């Protein structure tokens, strides 16, 4: 085809079909809904939900996973657009990690030694990482689908950021099932689940995000 013919054809549809916010709302929002349904159907939500909400420790894991999810989202949003850089957004991830680690360290040091094993392993450390990955997967699929409609020019980085976002949002959802709330536990095993998703995104991004 002649280039001029091509241009004339393309120019007939100037306005894009969907805005990035609509694309992300659909992909991310849809993924989170599926993750909630999956958690409810497969794992069940913890029954002492209302009781647990009274303790501050209950909120800590949600604050942590939500902060990482927000950091992941603002990074994904930048990496979805050619010619932009992530600026200081990586610092948000670092801040969330450092704050959680500091809280965990404080908890560890102030607890009697007899409780250390309980703080570290909780009652569910074996299943924590695989279940977070499982709950995160629908969110990951949604975010990748959104990114594929946009234009990530750094597919490995964008894939990793998508994994971080999906892992953190998935861990947030998983938090409604899991009855662990010790910061030591959360900052180790939740973080490991989120890291696994980040690695999965980095590894698969090269193929999933090609355009």
């Amino acid at each position, binding site marked *: 085809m002649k*280039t001029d013919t091509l241009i004339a054809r393309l120019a007939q549809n100037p306005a894009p079909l969907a805005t990035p916010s609509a694309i992300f709302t659909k992909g991310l929002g849809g993924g989170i809904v599926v993750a909630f349904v999956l958690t409810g159907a497969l794992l069940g939500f913890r029954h002492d939900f209302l009781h647990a909400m009274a303790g501050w420790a209950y909120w800590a894991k949600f604050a942590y996973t939500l902060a990482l999810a927000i950091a992941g989202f603002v990074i994904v949003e930048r990496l979805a657009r050619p010619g932009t850089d992530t600026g200081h957004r990586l610092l948000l991830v670092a801040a969330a990690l450092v704050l959680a680690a500091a809280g965990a360290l404080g908890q560890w040091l102030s607890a009697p030694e007899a409780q250390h094993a309980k703080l570290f392993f909780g009652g569910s450390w074996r299943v924590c990482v695989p279940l977070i990955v499982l709950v995160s997967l629908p969110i990951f699929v949604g975010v990748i689908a959104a990114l594929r409609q946009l234009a990530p020019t750094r597919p490995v980085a964008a894939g990793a950021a998508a994994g971080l976002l999906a892992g953190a949002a998935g861990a947030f959802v998983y938090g409604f099932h899991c009855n662990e709330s010790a910061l030591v536990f959360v900052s180790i095993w939740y973080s490991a689940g989120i890291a696994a998703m980040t690695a999965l995104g980095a590894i698969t991004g090269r193929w999933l995000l090609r355009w």
Partner: protein
Amino acid sequence: MRTSHERAENELKALMVAALAGDGAAYHRLLKALTPHLRAYFARRLHVGAEAEDLVQETLIAIHTKRASYDCSQPFTAWLHAIARYKLIDHFRKSGSRKTVALEEADAVTAESDSEAAEAARDVEQLLATLPEAKRALLRQVKLDGLSTAEAAAATGMSESAVKVGVHRSLQALIKRIGGKA
């Protein structure tokens, strides 16, 4: 250089913003304006002309299908360049060559083609400005506007041989000025 880049940025960005709002004419003008830049960008980096034209078309299609990803608060030329560069790297990957693409300024696409020609034209104008008025007019007629010696002679009322000598001396003067050897 900087100012021509800023001008390109402002013009192209205004067209893009209008296009995203649904202005088909602006979008058509934008794609038309980008094509020579892209052509020069790829032609310089590939050595097969047909491949360059394929990449121009592929990039135009990518600009089209990915146009939602442009954030109007960000520079348009950086967005354009990132897409062109991505397509170039993709082309090297597909063709199996191990070529790497050097890091470039974000305005590498728009800095080529038209603005290079524009800069060359500006250099010529600056050089011409150093000549006296009459000689400048004569040189412009013969060398830039493409008049024949006879036409220039008729237009200026000089003899043909005087035109030839005048043009020759003016060129000599300019060559001396830019430090070349006649």
